[in-house]
């Protein structure tokens, strides 16, 4: 019985391969976008975890310097001699040409057992590890990245190490980093002895840091990944619209068959199980295809994501993908779950389908009218939720709830709005044909509404994200012009060269401005402190968002500090508040400046204050003011006469283009996901129209019989699709702008710590509107052509079958 009934059910799909295709493809696309984003996020998180697990940071306490600077290893010896079982670690960036890695030096003799990743304990012995040239361990990817790079010890592969990290002995690392006798932090061995001197008396500059306290990267990048997840989810939702509509249509088309099956003796439960099994089967097939596509998407996007993460957050994520079983299971689960959600309504209807319901060609439409009312209520509820979150919500999650509720409310309300518009048109239309056209369009709405909702979501997301990115670009470019006011930026290799450089530039330039900084914790989070000279460059150009009177004089006098917007928002500090600096002194905040693209807090103080506070601050980077036309000559002089490496002289334009490059990269992935979502929505439209067109002959045949040519009917069908797409675009526009506002004023502030002014770009909307028309038109074209080519006999059959 099962086989016979199943073969009857499945035979439907072989007779309607297009429907089957759209169901499978819709589900595959939904799974692909979702699992692709998950693969990217998973890869990145794995890297963060690896970095956090390194040297047992996730489970061992550490002693870290209060000022965030390196400290002498004498402190380490003093602690050991005071009974503290600690092991030293040195960390730092090492660069050769364009290749940059993080060196981590450890002392294998005092390090607690099992702190280093597997593989490091493999072969060799201690002597080559600790005596020059030493031995390095790195992830295989890092080793291939370092091929051809000289200056590092011989490298051995270790899978457990985070990307971009080279692990070696502390002595070797100190030498390579040029910081002999210095260490970054101390790992505390779990078992400490009986007698121990208090930490404050031995190393007053160090403080205990709880396990896992170093995983800042994961926190910083959370917003980025939430962003990706939100887009993945949006695409998934759009894909589910397709699946839902395909399954719903298939159910409608098979309604008589289901009835016949039951009449000839297939029990309802068997039928339910078979239909559910069918859905699961499709979900598995489509899920597998989707996982493959998702892998492709992730593998294509990952290099951009990795570049963004390293450019924006300094987080190292490998550019290649490694897949975990959890990803596969998760992806297949989401495919099955999605299919179940999409099929749930149909299965529920099957259970309630009366065995002997009279033939009801418009039953579905009537049921949908009830659905429409429910949908409007749901939309209203979601809109209220969005409003409430907008008023009272705080933080990133609230921001995304706002976005989600807003988008869903708009999408759910769309069919009702369209029905209202079409009903109005119907009332005011004069001719019989026009009346029929509007009425018929309205009747088609239930069948098309899912596709139109998908299109609306994609369009609104496109408008919103496009507006956000473009607003950001405009603001960012203007900000760069202010921020990068100097003509040249030069970098010295060491202090001696820097001193010579300053005296070389003194007579040749209008001004040489130090750009000296230290990385130090500010208000309890990692940050940077800059020292600046008192110069017109800053007074005239610096992008201050707000400031106290006489701000620059106060800063120059060492009485006040400037903070960036991120720090101001995060720590709730504004002008006139006191800022606590790492050395314990406090300074008044005299101004807040915008600092886009930087996830960390930043402080600006007078350069003399900085050097007093941190005597060892590297004095290597400088900005040079000179008449713009003289800049190329000075650059040449710096390279040829002074002998500065060309890598260490950059003009304003080069830095600007580099900054813009980083900026553009940040949104590459967003843009790619946007395009994919749009494609999925266009596809939803196509499949809906195609499936509808096969059901529409009974509605079209009478009109044909009453004297309209097939070509004219086809043109009307095409026009209908274009009109619906156009109306959807009109409805999407305000939603998109609301979305842009939420992204700029809520999500950006929560995720990155900066607020951006919103700009509007009507030309972009026009382009997008045309794109929507194109998508709708292309989707309608094929069904229209098919209609125009339908043979009169087929149309006549309608009458024969319908009595």
């Amino acid at each position, binding site marked *: 019985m099962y086989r016979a009934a199943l073969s*009857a059910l499945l035979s439907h799909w072989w*007779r309607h391969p297009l429907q089957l295709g759209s169901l499978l493809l819709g589900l595959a696309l939904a799974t692909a976008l979702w699992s692709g984003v998950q693969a990217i996020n998973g890869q990145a998180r794995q890297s963060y975890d690896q970095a956090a697990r390194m040297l047992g940071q996730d489970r061992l306490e550490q002693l870290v310097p209060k000022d965030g600077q390196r400290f002498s290893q004498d402190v380490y010896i003093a602690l050991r001699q005071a009974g503290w079982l600690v092991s030293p670690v040195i960390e730092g960036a090492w660069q050769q040409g364009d290749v940059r890695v993080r060196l981590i030096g450890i002392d294998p003799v005092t390090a607690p057992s099992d702190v280093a990743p597997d593989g490091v304990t493999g072969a060799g012995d201690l002597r080559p590890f600790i005596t020059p040239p030493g031995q390095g361990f790195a992830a295989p990817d890092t080793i291939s990245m370092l091929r051809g790079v000289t200056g590092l010890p011989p490298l051995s592969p270790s899978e457990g190490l985070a990307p971009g990290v080279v692990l070696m002995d502390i002595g070797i690392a100190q030498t390579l980093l040029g910081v002999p006798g210095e260490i970054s932090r101390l790992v505390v061995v779990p078992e400490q002895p009986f007698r121990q001197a208090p930490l404050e008396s031995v190393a007053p500059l160090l403080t205990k840091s709880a396990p896992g306290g170093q995983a800042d990267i994961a926190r910083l990048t959370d917003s980025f990944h939430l962003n990706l997840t939100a887009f993945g989810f949006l695409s998934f939702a759009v894909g589910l619209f397709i699946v839902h509509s395909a399954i719903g249509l298939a159910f409608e088309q098979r309604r008589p068959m289901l009835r016949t099956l039951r*009449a*000839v*003796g297939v*029990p309802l439960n068997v039928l339910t199980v078979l239909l559910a099994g069918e859905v699961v089967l499709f979900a598995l097939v489509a899920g597998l295809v989707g996982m493959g596509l998702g892998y492709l998407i992730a593998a294509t996007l990952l290099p951009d994501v990795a570049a963004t993460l390293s450019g924006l957050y300094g987080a190292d994520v490998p550019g290649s993908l490694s897949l975990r079983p959890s990803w596969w299971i998760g992806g297949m689960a989401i495919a099955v779950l999605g299919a179940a959600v999409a099929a749930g309504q149909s299965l529920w209807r099957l259970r309630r389908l009366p*065995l002997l319901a009279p033939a009801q060609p418009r039953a579905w439409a009537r049921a949908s009218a009830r659905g429409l009312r429910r949908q409007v209520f749901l939309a209203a509820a979601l809109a209220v939720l969005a409003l409430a979150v907008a008023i009272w919500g705080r933080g990133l999650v609230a921001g995304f709830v706002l976005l989600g509720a807003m988008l869903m409310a708009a999408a759910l309300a769309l069919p009702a709005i369209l029905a209202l518009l079409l009903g109005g048109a119907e009332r005011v239309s004069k001719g019989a044909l026009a009346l029929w056209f509007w009425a018929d369009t309205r009747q088609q709405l239930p069948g098309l509404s899912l596709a139109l909702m998908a299109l609306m979501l994609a369009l609104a997301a496109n408008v919103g994200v496009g507006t956000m990115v473009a607003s950001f670009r405009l603001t960012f470019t203007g900000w760069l012009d202010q921020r990068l006011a100097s003509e040249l930026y030069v970098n010295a290799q060491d202090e001696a060269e820097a001193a010579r450089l300053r005296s070389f530039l003194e007579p040749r330039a209008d001004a040489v401005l130090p750009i000296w900084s230290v990385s130090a914790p500010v208000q309890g989070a990692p940050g940077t402190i800059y020292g600046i000279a008192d110069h017109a460059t800053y007074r005239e150009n610096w992008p201050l968002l707000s400031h106290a009177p006489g701000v620059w004089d106060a800063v120059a006098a060492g009485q006040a500090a400037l903070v960036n917007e991120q720090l101001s928002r995060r720590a709730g500090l504004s002008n006139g508040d006191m800022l606590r600096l790492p050395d314990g002194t406090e300074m008044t905040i005299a101004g807040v400046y915008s600092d886009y693209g930087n996830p960390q807090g930043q402080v600006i103080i007078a350069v003399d204050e900085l050097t007093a506070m941190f005597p060892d601050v590297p004095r290597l980077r400088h900005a040079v003011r000179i008449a713009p036309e003289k800049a190329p000559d000075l650059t040449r002089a710096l390279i040829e006469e002074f002998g500065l490496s060309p890598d260490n002289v950059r003009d304003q334009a080069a830095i600007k283009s580099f900054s813009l490059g980083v900026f553009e990269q940040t949104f590459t992935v967003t843009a790619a996901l946007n395009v994919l979502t749009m494609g999925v929505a266009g596809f939803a439209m196509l499949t809906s129209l195609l499936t509808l067109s096969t059901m529409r002959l009974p509605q079209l045949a009478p009109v044909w019989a009453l004297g309209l040519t097939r070509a004219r009917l086809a043109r009307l069908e095409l026009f209908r699709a274009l009109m619906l797409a156009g109306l959807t675009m009109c409805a999407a526009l305000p939603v998109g702008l609301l979305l842009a506002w939420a992204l700029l004023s809520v999500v950006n502030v929560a995720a990155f710590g900066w607020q951006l002014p919103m700009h509007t770009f009507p030309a972009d909307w026009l382009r997008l509107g045309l794109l929507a028309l194109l998508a709708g038109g292309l989707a309608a074209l094929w069904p229209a052509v098919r209609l125009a080519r339908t043979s009169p006999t087929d149309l006549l059959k309608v009458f024969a079958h319908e009595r």
Partner: protein
Amino acid sequence: MLLSVQGVAKAFASGGAHVRVFSDVSFDLGAGETVALTGESGSGKSTLLHICAGLDASDSGRIMLCEQDIAGLSDGDRAQLRRDKVGLVFQQFNLIPSLSVMANLSFQARLAGREDQDWTRALADRLGLSALLSRYPEQLSGGQQQRVAIGRALAARPPLLLADEPTGNLDETTGDGVMDLLQELVAETGAGLLMVTHSERLAGRLQRRLHLSGGGLV
């Protein structure tokens, strides 16, 4: 007794009102007996047929099909009874559009697990469908479709055939041809036949006639 209907009543709820269709309907149908059920439109003759098939439930009364009271059966058991004991022919053919003629013919027999290919082919031959076996329902004329439906109903050799206006969708000539075949095959297989029709002429071709009027059999 093949089918025994005793004191069956049925009413519909319509706009809050309780509309009685018929009540206290009783009749018997023996093996091999052919009975016509006539009545005006809305007299409930189709409903009565559906109740006999277990497709619809009566409000009261007893229906014994092959010595089994179908009132107390679950949906699954009723479905099994239909698979095994009943052939159904509808006015609107109700073929499965995505299955070929051959697959439609053998469908119920396969469901019941009693497929007899020789018999199915013989049936197809008798019904004049041999040349059409690989076609799909939409490619057939109405008369051809109804012949497929009759074949499907008889392929499992059920003891009882229930037909609801089997020629209602067909012109007179075609309808008569279909009717001839139906009667011949019923006679050959020894099945009992209960056929709903509004045609006096067709009713007259069967052994016995029940007329439903004014909410009861007359």
